[in-house]
């Protein structure tokens, strides 16, 4: 590998650079979730409320097991408290980007962030 770099000609560098830029651009456009501006709260599969993320608030949502608390703070949302035994949705923490979702399955409560352009929420084939 003494002079491996000597095998790269000036035009090759140009191609490598454009390749890197193209790849970075792909990642930036395709992996960017988009900013979220509202939270959709569902209970038992039906939309319970849609709240804007601009206002900090704490919402109590009733489910079969009891009340789930959803906190909205600083343009982010999380499930602050839930009666589910394993607390997966609470431990998921703050949701920031559009398309992120936290689901408390036993209590049938979910909160999903959505942006101006709706992205697919599940993939199947």
């Amino acid at each position, binding site marked *: 590998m003494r002079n491996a770099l000597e095998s790269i000609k000036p035009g*090759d560098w140009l191609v490598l650079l454009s390749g890197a830029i193209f790849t970075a651009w792909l990642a930036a456009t*395709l992996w960017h979730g988009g900013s979220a501006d509202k939270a959709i709260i569902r209970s038992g599969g039906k939309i319970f409320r849609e709240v804007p993320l601009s206002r900090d608030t704490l919402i109590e949502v009733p489910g079969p097991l009891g009340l789930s608390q959803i906190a909205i703070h600083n343009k982010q949302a999380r499930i602050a408290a839930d009666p589910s035994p394993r607390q997966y949705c609470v431990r998921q923490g703050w949701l920031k980007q559009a398309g992120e979702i936290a689901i408390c399955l036993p209590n049938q409560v979910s909160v999903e962030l959505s942006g101006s352009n709706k992205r697919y929420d599940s993939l199947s084939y």
Partner: protein
Amino acid sequence: MTASVIKLATTAEDHHIARMAALALGLTVLEAAVPSPLPGVKPGLANIVTLIVLARYGWRTAAWVSLLRVLAGSLLMGSFLSPGFFLSLSGAVCSLAILAVSQHLPARWFGAVTHSVAAAYAHIAGQMIVVYLWLIPHAGIAYLFPIFATAALVFGTVNGLIAARFMDNTQIHSLPLDGGGLGRG
């Protein structure tokens, strides 16, 4: 009753193409033993042979070697006419299409690395088209593009470097200079 013998007339060029394709096949089989983190992400070492053939003998020979490698490789791997075969084929066809254009770039400025990287990107583009049109017709595969593009950039560069080094060394070797040869590098 006399035994009938069918003899195909073969030229020296046919033999040469067969030798090169066999070399590429060896690399394909070797590579199949290397585990891949994601289906479809492979170094594509056989393309080193295609690149060298392209530089030495032109596009037509390179196309023969590349397509023979895809066909015979699928027979060896037992994947002939499977989705994997069509993915390889579409990748190879797109790569060859790009190489048909990129080989006309001035050789003073653009070397094997350029051809290799361009062909690698064409390869994943061709595969993604087949994946989208036939196997997974869902926009969700777009999430994988950056991964495949990164792999194309990395492996394209590495393969191009290997091909370029090989050609540099064999050039030195053919001149009465210090012995470079194939074993070095």
